[in-house]
């Protein structure tokens, strides 16, 4: 701590340069925090996938639907405990920017296969009995201030009615919670029957099936059996674990992990040169001062350590600023990612990254300072 005033003063020797360097590192770590936070959000969704569940989709594409009649055949296969289905409704509320994750389902089947979604029995009963009924997640209810008894209109971007309109009205009859994963509380479920009867095309079809297996160790065999069942039919299937399905779904958006890594690599590569040259210049300007420190009795190693600490102070301070800003901004992405804060491992990774950056950019100038010959340096 006693060296802190010396380090701090050295850092601010050229104020403008330090501010610009600090800003560039801050922006880099802001980007790091946001992008890795997004990445972590996606990865977390995949990691939380249930091992007991399989997802069956069309082998052609995720957007292709499957016949409703397949459900009974799947259910009859050995190893299958139960089957549910869901479809992509793709609506928004009042304004296209208010996108809602909405799915027509069969209430009993769906909530039985997803026990982590907690819905009071009387609300589930109301859902089953109400044709236009809908059950929504607690987070979604809180977002729009919806409550049980409200009538909510949604505009589907895909599904039109026979009269040509795309506006669908729903009555909220229940609000579910998901104590194990709050990210799951943003969905809007409604009756498949209401959807199937009301749509102008695609009747008798579903988006995908969710299969609960009796024994998770038999998942591969059950998946193969399902796909074999529909092989050479007009609706061939692709069955995979929930985790594989989530990964495939995310890859439709793009390989988030790879994209994030490429962006961050480019940012930090540029930063390495910018910060490295700043540190080099800073040490070059202070050659006589470093020589004076040596005359006073600072050893070569002490001078090396001082320069490295200066680099650490700059990089870690800027990283903390950047990550702090990212933490403030990140909740704004809650609707897209589902996470309300940047996961702690991302913050820790960021700080470790800042330390590594500091050591990399500080090592050459620190080494030069260590090797400084006092007599030559004082001679100027």
């Amino acid at each position, binding site marked *: 701590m*006693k*060296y802190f*005033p*010396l380090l701090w*003063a*050295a850092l*601010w*020797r050229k104020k403008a340069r330090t501010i610009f360097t600090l800003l560039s590192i801050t922006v880099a770590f802001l980007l790091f925090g946001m992008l890795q936070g997004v990445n972590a959000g996606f990865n977390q969704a995949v990691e939380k996938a249930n091992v007991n569940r399989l997802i069956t989709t069309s082998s052609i594409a995720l957007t292709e639907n499957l016949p409703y009649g397949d459900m009974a055949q799947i259910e009859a296969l050995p190893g299958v405990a139960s089957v549910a289905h869901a479809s992509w409704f793709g609506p928004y509320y009042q304004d296209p920017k208010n996108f809602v994750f909405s799915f027509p389902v069969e209430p009993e089947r769906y909530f039985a296969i997803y026990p982590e979604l907690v819905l009071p029995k009387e609300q589930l009963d109301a859902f089953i009995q109400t044709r236009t009924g809908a059950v929504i997640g607690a987070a979604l209810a809180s977002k729009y201030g919806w409550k049980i008894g409200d009538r909510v209109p949604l505009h589907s971007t895909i599904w039109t009615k026979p009269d040509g309109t795309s506006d669908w009205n729903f009555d909220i009859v229940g609000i579910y919670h998901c104590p194990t994963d709050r990210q799951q509380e943003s969905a809007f479920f409604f009756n498949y029957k209401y959807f199937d009867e009301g749509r102008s095309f695609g009747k008798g079809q579903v988006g995908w099936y969710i299969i609960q297996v009796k024994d998770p160790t038999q998942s591969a065999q059950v998946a193969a059996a399902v796909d074999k069942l529909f092989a050479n039919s007009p609706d061939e299937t692709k069955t995979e674990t929930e985790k594989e399905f989530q990964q495939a779904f995310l890859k439709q958006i793009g390989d988030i992990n790879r994209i994030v890594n490429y962006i961050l690599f480019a940012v930090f590569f540029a930063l390495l040169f910018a910060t490295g040259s700043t540190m080099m210049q800073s040490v070059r300007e202070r050659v*006589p*001062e470093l020589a*004076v*420190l*040596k*005359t*006073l*009795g*600072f*050893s*070569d*190693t*002490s001078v090396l350590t001082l320069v490295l600490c200066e680099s650490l102070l700059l990089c870690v301070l800027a990283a903390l600023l950047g990550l702090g800003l990212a933490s403030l901004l990140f909740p704004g992405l809650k609707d897209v990612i589902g996470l309300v804060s940047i996961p702690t491992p991302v913050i820790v990774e960021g700080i470790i990254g800042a330390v590594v950056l500091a050591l990399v950019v500080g090592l050459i100038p620190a080494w030069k300072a260590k090797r400084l010959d*006092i*007599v030559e340096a*004082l001679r100027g």
Partner: protein
Amino acid sequence: MSAIVSLHNVVKTYTRGKQTVEVLHNLSIDIAQGDFVALMGPSGSGKTTLLNLIGGLDRPSRGEVNVAGERIDQLSSGQLAKWRARHVGFVFQFYNLMPMLSAERNVELPLLLTNLSGAQRKQNVLAALTVVGLADRAKHKPAELSGGQAQRVAIARALVADPTLLVCDEPTGDLDRTTADEILHLLQMLNKDHGKTIVMVTHDPKAAEYASHQLHLDKGQLVEGSAHA
């Protein structure tokens, strides 16, 4: 009095390109404890080289350098750094203060290498600044001080760790006559009242008059003087 600085048959050569230049030739000097010695001579005579050897900033090519009871030409770089911190205070022509630190922080620098507490360091810094008459300028940065004041701060920095020896390289070279005399009076006071041994390089014969002995170097050899062996 016993010799605090003792150089025996010291040779110092520099290599410049393919040429080897011998700057000091078999030089032997003894400087007694409590002495105030002025090293004089024309440019290139080896004054600063000799001062650097005495201050442990450089090593001889041959010969022995004993200062403060230690054979410093045989010390490693790390040992030499520790030795300098304990035994030598440096005063330079251009003050060489840290421009971004206040006077008191500059003076505190040598104490950072000791085990003194923050309060003790502060106390010692104030004492050193009081000795040089600048206690009221403790919070000022070097740019806010005159040349004479900056040199006083540099002297306080040289003194603060209570070194055995003060090594001054042209301490008045950048100052006007009046200010130079003030600095020389201060050095004389430190020598007489505080018993500090001082070795000072100077071109200025008037400055040399403040010393108790003068050593004249020419072409790397001692030509006259009362302090050599």
